[in-house]
């Protein structure tokens, strides 16, 4: 089930298994390459992309620099508009707040909009333990939930499943959760979508409580914004009497006007569309102008820390909090393409997961200590990121942290991390390095960009890899620039040794 990744093997082990799963790799390759090409076109349409990207970066940085002020302003605005604001320092507290709010309504089932924050805190499982059933309503999340699976991509969580698998899951599992799959269901996407529509509609129409996240919160006005495609978000935000939104504290924008930047960059970066089919914005509880209300009568906003303030305390790493979860970095990452989202052992896969998860959770576990190594430092993620997060820079910084130790903030307290030498993290990192070296395509596609990221590109492996690479030369950096190579080989597809 989604949300919990306890007991995940460290990245190298999980990646090793994934690389040998051919269905998964085929599905992933198809998906990432399709989105990647479309995205480039969507971005090229806007001649001011560089300025939009810079503005997005600056808005987010400014907000983070004054986060305390904007949080208080947001709280006032949401309260003034009829909502109630709750503060949750960690996952347990957030889950308890939500469970109590649901219980207070007397309901035992809720409908959910896909949300990274609620996956991060394992809300579904926490609610289950309190006797509350949470129905995922996004088609892909439904596939994942019915398949007793974990999401593998921020945007297309069931990207690792093909249509035949989806049909089998629907046939087998739908009846357990509600309306069964229609007789004789085939594997055409249209029929599968129709089966999901009927299955979920039954739930929407009776739901009294909806749970969502939000893409943006406007401090000035108290407005929340959810960006989506299917309309399940609109269903959950509109039909229930009570709406509970769980949102990370970093999702604030200071002003209404700031949306003009992100509503242009987010859809193009994520689904490669000029605009996603639906965007909903609501401010507190609404009178809607008519005599009776429009939308939920009760609105609760749960502001979630859960490691975000610790991340904020890291001068290099804090830029990860600019992330707007567009998933563009996943689709260009040569490591993600081969390893798949599950290998990252967290709800945040790919390059952003490799820097966000170890900051939110600390690097105590094997998986978190190995994540900063789950990259070839090729820099493609930085190139596409609409808020210009320098992911390679943060990766190198975190590797150093794992290996050399040093001061970090955990749960608000300054602690000194011990160097990981001879410890689990080192072994994990070593295995990651070895994994990269036994998959030359991964390493090579990374190496090619070295000319553009020279300052980040060591002659020997950083950290624990040093001993290993001390007696071996890393492959020479070829003269050909990354872009040329990318063009010539169709993104590594036709390069010998990189295709499956």
């Amino acid at each position, binding site marked *: 089930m989604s949300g919990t990744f306890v007991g995940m093997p460290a990245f190298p082990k999980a990646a090793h298994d994934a690389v040998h799963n051919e269905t998964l790799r085929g599905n992933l390759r198809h998906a990432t390459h399709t989105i990647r090409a479309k995205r480039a076109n969507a971005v090229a349409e806007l001649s001011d992309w560089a300025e939009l990207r810079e503005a997005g970066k600056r808005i987010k940085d400014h907000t983070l620099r004054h986060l305390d002020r904007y949080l208080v302003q947001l709280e006032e605005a949401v309260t003034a508009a009829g909502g109630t604001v709750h503060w949750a320092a960690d996952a347990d507290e957030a889950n308890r707040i939500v469970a109590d709010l649901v219980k207070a309504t007397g309901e035992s089932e809720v409908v959910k909009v896909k949300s990274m924050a609620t996956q991060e805190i394992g809300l579904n499982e926490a609610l289950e333990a309190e006797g509350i059933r949470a129905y995922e309503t996004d088609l892909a999340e439904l596939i994942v939930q019915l398949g007793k699976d974990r999401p593998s991509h921020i945007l297309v969580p069931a990207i690792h499943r093909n249509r035949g698998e989806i049909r089998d899951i629907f046939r087998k599992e739908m009846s357990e959760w509600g309306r069964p799959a229609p007789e004789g269901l085939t594997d055409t996407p249209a029929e599968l979508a129709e089966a999901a529509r009927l299955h979920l509609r039954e739930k929407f129409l009776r739901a009294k409580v909806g749970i969502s996240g939000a893409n943006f919160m406007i401090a000035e006005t108290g407005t929340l914004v959810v960006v989506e495609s299917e309309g399940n978000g609109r269903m959950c935000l509109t039909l229930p009497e009570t709406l509970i939104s769980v949102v990370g504290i970093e999702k604030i924008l200071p002003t209404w006007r700031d*949306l003009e930047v992100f509503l242009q960059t987010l859809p193009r970066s994520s689904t490669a*569309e000029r605009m996603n089919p639906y965007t909903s914005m609501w401010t507190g509880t609404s009178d809607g102008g008519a005599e009776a209300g429009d939308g939920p009568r009760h609105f609760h906003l749960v502001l979630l820390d859960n490691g975000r303030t610790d991340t*904020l305390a890291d001068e290099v790493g804090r830029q990860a909090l600019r992330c707007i979860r567009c998933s563009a970095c996943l689709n260009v990452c040569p490591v993600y393409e081969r390893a798949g989202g599950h290998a990252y052992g967290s709800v945040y896969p790919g390059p952003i997961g490799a820097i966000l998860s170890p900051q939110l959770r600390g690097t105590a576990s094997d998986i978190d200590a190995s994540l900063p190594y789950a990259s070839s430092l090729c820099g493609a993620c930085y190139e596409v990121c609409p808020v210009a997060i320098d992911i390679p820079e943060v990766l190198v910084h975190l590797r150093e942290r794992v290996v050399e130790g040093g001061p970090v*903030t955990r749960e608000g307290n300054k602690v000194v991390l011990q160097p990981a030498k001879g410890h689990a993290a080192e072994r994990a990192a070593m295995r990651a390095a070895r994994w990269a070296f036994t998959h030359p395509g991964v390493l090579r596609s990374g190496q090619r960009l070295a000319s553009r990221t020279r300052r980040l590109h060591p002659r020997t492996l950083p950290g624990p890899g040093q001993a290993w690479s001390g007696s071996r030369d890393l492959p020479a950096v070829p003269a050909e620039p990354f872009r040329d190579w990318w063009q010539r080989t169709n993104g590594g597809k036709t390069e010998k040794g990189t295709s499956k």
Partner: protein
Amino acid sequence: MSSRERILGRVRRALADVGQDDTPYEQAVPRDYLREHGERSVERTVDLLAENLAEYRAIVHRCAEDELAAVIGRLLAERGSKTVLVPAGLDEEWFAATDAERVPDRGESTPHELDRVDSVVTACAVAVAETGTIVLDGGPDQGRRRITLVPDHHICVVRVPEQVVSAVPQALERLDPARPLTWISGPSATSDIELDRVEGVHGPRSLEVVLVSGRPGAEATS
């Protein structure tokens, strides 16, 4: 200590390295990006809206003000709609050419009742040409958000050129964040199954947009 105080305290300590910065927000962020992309005539902007709506598989119709009732009547008939949801503030005249039973948008209607209605007709607040987007703000001629969500067929009337802007920044300027806003670009769609686009998982599977021009008496009232 409450979690509120704890989190705000953590934020302040985390930012201890960040120097005092009193730059007003209006000056902190460069806004040298464009207000719209390219220069277009008013007619061209409306054409672009039509093209982009169609590209995202909305069905676009164009007519003059005095043809609107006939167009709405025809679209409902083609669809075989027997019932149509009508926001309180819509012009009665729009329904002069249809036999479909008019169902008023009422606060007490249950979602199940809405689910039994065949079509819904609304106006809009603004439309964005560059992205092919229509925005509803819950105004009297648009009704509650749920009426454009639950029925399977939505007919949305856009007044051109008055309600059309080129780009997202111009749309936001015209909107009031205090209202419940729904931005719609094409019908409900998913690409979750092997990235094949399929229309309609949850929202209306058919979106028809009528671009209506030539508002009679527009000069007199403006």
